[in-house]
């Protein structure tokens, strides 16, 4: 118990405390932190780069409804007792267990100007092969979002599958016998039964969307021309490129508050995940 607690304090509790303190200081590791009050926050308010990062992070929230709807759909598909369904479940989970380092690199290659993504888009008549989606400031953020979606579906699918299986088939079958249509069953039985799972999943995906970082780190480093520069990438850049740890910590606190607010909105929207409406 004690060694666990000690490490917990050191690597989980201490960052919260010391990080909050750092936000009110000027600190570069070499000299001791110097207390500057609200200076960091005042500077943040005026920092264009930070706000465009926040805006990009908020844009990233667009991925949440897509990822949730698709995973619910996929979970319902793989919940059917079909032959070989185990293969499909496993296949969809492969991106989940693969590192962002690998996934990010693979998609960077896939998005190259002569690569498979452009090939498909061209044949669908959706674009001319003039540039890669990742090199274009108008599309880069959405291209990265697609990778988040692609990697995340399998993860949420498993969670929804667990939720679906806890609802059980009896209720749905009873409704079908009573003459309910598929859509009625879905809206009146499946969806309410899934509400606790939907809360957990949308909460997780909202918070991780606001805090998106690893995809950006591997694929675009914030570029081109800052179009994928997210709030947390700002936080990283200030700390590990500019060595302004206090300023970065202040940005971190703002991001934390934003994700907390969106978490609460989520909580309200799913009515706290209660099964009864």
């Amino acid at each position, binding site marked *: 118990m004690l060694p666990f607690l000690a490490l917990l304090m050191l690597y*989980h509790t201490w960052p919260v405390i010391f990080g909050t303190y750092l936000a009110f200081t000027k600190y570069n590791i070499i000299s001791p932190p110097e207390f500057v009050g609200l200076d960091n926050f005042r500077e943040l308010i005026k920092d264009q780069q930070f706000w465009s990062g926040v805006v990009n992070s908020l844009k990233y929230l667009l991925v949440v409804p897509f990822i949730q709807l698709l995973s619910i759909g996929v979970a319902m598909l793989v919940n059917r007792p079909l032959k070989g369904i185990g293969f499909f479940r496993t296949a969809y989970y492969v991106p989940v267990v693969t590192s962002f380092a690998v996934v990010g690199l693979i998609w960077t290659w896939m998005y190259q100007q002569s*690569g498979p993504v452009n090939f498909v888009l061209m044949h669908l008549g959706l674009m001319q092969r003039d540039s890669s989606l990742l090199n274009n400031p108008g599309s880069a953020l959405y291209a990265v979002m697609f990778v988040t979606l692609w990697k995340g579906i399998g993860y949420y699918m498993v969670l929804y599958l667990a939720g679906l299986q806890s609802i059980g088939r009896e209720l749905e079958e009873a409704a079908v016998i009573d003459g309910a249509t598929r859509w009625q069953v879905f809206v009146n039985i499946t969806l309410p039964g899934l509400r606790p799972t939907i809360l957990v999943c949308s909460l997780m995906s909202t918070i991780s969307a606001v805090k998106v970082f690893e995809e950006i780190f591997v694929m675009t480093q914030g570029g081109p021309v800052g179009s994928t520069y997210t709030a947390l990438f700002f936080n990283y850049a200030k700390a590990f490129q500019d060595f302004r740890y206090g300023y970065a910590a202040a940005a971190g606190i703002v991001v934390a508050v934003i994700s907390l607010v969106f978490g609460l909105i989520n909580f309200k929207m799913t009515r706290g995940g209660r099964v009864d409406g």
Partner: protein
Amino acid sequence: MTTSPKTDPTTSPQAAHLRAQKRRRTRLHNFAAYTVLTTIALVMLYPFYWTLITSLEPTGNIYEAKLLPSGLSLKNYAAVLSGTTVPFLRMVLNSVVICTVGVIASVTFAALAAYPLAKMRFPGRDLIFYAILALVVLPNEAGLIVNYITTIKLGLLEQRGPVWDTITQYAAIVLPSVASIIGLFLIRQAYMGVPIELIEAARIDGAKELTIWRRIMLPLSMPTIAAFAILEFVALWNSFLWARILPLDPQMLPLSAGLLELSGTFATNSRATMAGAVLVIIPILIVFASLQRYFMKGIEGAVKG
């Protein structure tokens, strides 16, 4: 429901017709389901397949969309493994060490710490548990920065001689992930399911708490502990950010972090990096495929709470 209530549903031709219709409909539904399932599977797997075949090609138009490689050669794999630019085999060793130590340490710590929280009575027990749990919910943005500072202050990255340095750098990578709150939560949940009578009986027989833990709790919670161990292995194998941020000796980088290094140094030879990516994926796929059941169970357990 068009059959009249008077006809016997098992013999009437109308019913037979309805059954045939239903069967046809099911078949159509299944066909549609398989089509959608296969399409999604292609989207999920093609990027991996494409990386694999491209890494096997000796030359040609590298990023082209394709279904089969234009030629077969292992020269890209040789380029990665020979380690002239990046010590790939050393990175494999690093990852193995980090995963082994990390999994053993975090499982042991979580399994030990969960016991008093689940089955021993002392004041403030639940308070401690919820305080720990709250840390997951608590925003931890500055985590990376402060953990970095902590690691530096602990002197884990100071130079003191080759053997010592190797140990401390491994420690710097592993330590932040050892106290796993998720692991504590999962294992405590499993302990809660162990009947209290069993423990009381052992206590009456004079067994020490540590003996009870080892002889009763551990064996009975093995499925959950195994699931957590797998989750932890996958997480450690895949983690790269922390190791990339630490100013480590390049020799010390684990695989996932090393792969990014590789993509930097092999900027002109993406095929070699692709070969590296394939080599990073393969072990995790083997682990995942062989232990898949525990894996899914572990995640489901986490949801149901």
